[in-house]
C-alpha cells in the first residue's frame, strides 16, 4: 500500500516535471529547431496589434514580428492575450516574445527583460471638447475625476502630476477611458497620445480634444519583452531593429501604422 502511494506520488511528480520541461524552451536555438516563433500580443490594441476586418492579425507589432520570423526562417505564431495574460504566457514558455505596447519599468524588469525601446510615446491629458480645462492646473483639483488604464504609465504619470485629482483606473484598452469620458463617468483621461489619437476615429467626430501640453519629463518608451534567460533572443531582437532602421523597413512601418491613418482603409 505504502509502496503504491510512493509510486503514484513519484509518477505524478515526474509527470509535472515532464510538462514543465516541455514548456521551458524559448532560446533562439530552440525557436529555430522548432521552426516556430511564438509571439504574445495584446488583442484589440490598434494600431500596435489587433484583428482586422478580414479576421487577420494586423498592426505595427505584428509586422515587426512577421519580419523577425522571416529573418529567422521560421513560421510565425501569434498568440492573443488580455493584458494580464501576457506575462504568464511569456514566463510559462507558451510565448517566446511579448509584443505589446508595454513600457519598461524597473519593477517590471525584475520579472522579464526588455529589449531596447522601439518607439517613444508621450502621455497626454484629454477631455471632452466642451470641457473648460486648458492646463494641468485646471485638471489637478479634487472635484475632477481622471480616468487611466490600470498598470499603465498613464496611471503612474497621473498620480505624479495630478495628485489632487480623483483617479479611476479602468481595465481593458484605451477605448475604455474614452468610453467612460463620453459616458460622463470621468472628466478627463490620461493615456499615451498615440493610443488616444488612434481610437478617436471610432467616436463621434470632434467630441474629444487633447490638452496642448504633454505630461512627463521626456518621452515614454515601449519595448518588447523576453524571459531573463533568453539573452541571445534579446540581443537578436536589438540587432533586428538596428538592421531594419538602416534599411528603411522600420520607417515604413512607423509611417504607415503610427504616423498616418491610411491603414484604417486597408484593415
Amino acid at each position, binding site marked *: 500500500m505504502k509502496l503504491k502511494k510512493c509510486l503514484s506520488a513519484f509518477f505524478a511528480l515526474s509527470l509535472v516535471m515532464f510538462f514543465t520541461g516541455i514548456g521551458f524552451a524559448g532560446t533562439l536555438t530552440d525557436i529555430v529547431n522548432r521552426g516556430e516563433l511564438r509571439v504574445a500580443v495584446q488583442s484589440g490594441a490598434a494600431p500596435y496589434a489587433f484583428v482586422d476586418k478580414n479576421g487577420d492579425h494586423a498592426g505595427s507589432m505584428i509586422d515587426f514580428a512577421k519580419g523577425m520570423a522571416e529573418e529567422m526562417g521560421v513560421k510565425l505564431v501569434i498568440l492573443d492575450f488580455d493584458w494580464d495574460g501576457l506575462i*504568464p504566457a511569456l514566463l510559462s514558455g507558451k510565448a517566446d516574445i511579448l509584443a505589446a505596447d508595454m513600457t519598461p519599468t524597473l519593477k517590471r524588469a525584475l*520579472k522579464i527583460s526588455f529589449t531596447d525601446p522601439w518607439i517613444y510615446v508621450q502621455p497626454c491629458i484629454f477631455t471632452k471638447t466642451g470641457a473648460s480645462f486648458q492646463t494641468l492646473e485646471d485638471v489637478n483639483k479634487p472635484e475632477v475625476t481622471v480616468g487611466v488604464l490600470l498598470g499603465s504609465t498613464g496611471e503612474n504619470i497621473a498620480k505624479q502630476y495630478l495628485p489632487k485629482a480623483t483617479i*479611476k483606473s479602468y481595465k481593458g484598452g484605451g477605448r475604455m477611458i474614452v468610453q*467612460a469620458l*463620453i459616458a460622463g*463617468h470621468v472628466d478627463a483621461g490620461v493615456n499615451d497620445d498615440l493610443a488616444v489619437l488612434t481610437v478617436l476615429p471610432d467616436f463621434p467626430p470632434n467630441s474629444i480634444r487633447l490638452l496642448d501640453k504633454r505630461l512627463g519629463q521626456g518621452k515614454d518608451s515601449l519595448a518588447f519583452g523576453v524571459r531573463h534567460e533568453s539573452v541571445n533572443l534579446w540581443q537578436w531582437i536589438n540587432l533586428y531593429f538596428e538592421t531594419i532602421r538602416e534599411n528603411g523597413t522600420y520607417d515604413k512601418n512607423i509611417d504607415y501604422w503610427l504616423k498616418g491613418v491610411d491603414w484604417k482603409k486597408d484593415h
Partner: protein
Amino acid sequence: MLADFNLRVILEYLPLFLAGLRSTFFISIVSIGLAIATGILACACRISGIRLIKYPAIAYIEIIRSTPLLVQIYFLYFGLPTLGIRVPEIQTGILALMLNSGAYIAEIIRAGINSVEPGQIEAGVSSGLNYVQRMRFIILPQALGVTVPPLLGQAIVLVKDSALLSLISVAELTRAGQTLTSDRFMPSEAFFTVAFFYMCIYFCLKALADWSQRKLIFREAY
C-alpha cells in the same frame, strides 16, 4: 515555479487586499439584501393572477436570466448614460448584482412555493383558511426550508460575481489582485491571495447555510 512564490510581496500588498476584501464584503452584503427583496417582490408578481404585474415580472426574470452579467454591467455603466441616467460605479455594481441575483432568487422562491403539494392547499381551503392564512401557515413554512439552501448558494454565486465589478473600476478584491499583477508581474501570488480570500468568504457562507439548514429541519420536525 513554486520556489519563486513570493510571500513577502503578498505581505507588502496585504493592506490593499484587505481594503478590497472589505469592499467586496460590503458590496456583497448590500447586494444580497437588496436582491432578496427584489426576488421576493418579483416572485410575488410572477405568481400573481393579475396580468398587468405578472407579465412584466416574467419579462424581467427572463431578460436577466438570458443575458450574461458582464453585459448587464456594461449596459448599466456605459449604456444608461447615453439615455441620460448616470450612476456612479459602486452603485452601478450593486444595482447590477441586485437585478441579476433578484431574478434567480425569484425563481428559487417560486420553486419553493411550488414544491408544496397541491393536496395540502386543498386541505387548507376545505378547512376554511383564506389565501393569506394558507400562505402563512401551510405554504411559506415549508417553502422556507426548501428555499434557504439554494438561496445561500445564490449568495455565494453573487459574491464571486462581484469580481466582475473590477472591470468598471470598483476597487474590490479582484482589482487588488489585478493591481499587484500589473505593478509587479506576479499573477500567481496575486490571484492565489485573491482566491484564498474568496474561499474564506465561501466557507463562512457555507457554514451559515449548514447551520440554517439544521435549524430549519429541526423546526420542521415539530
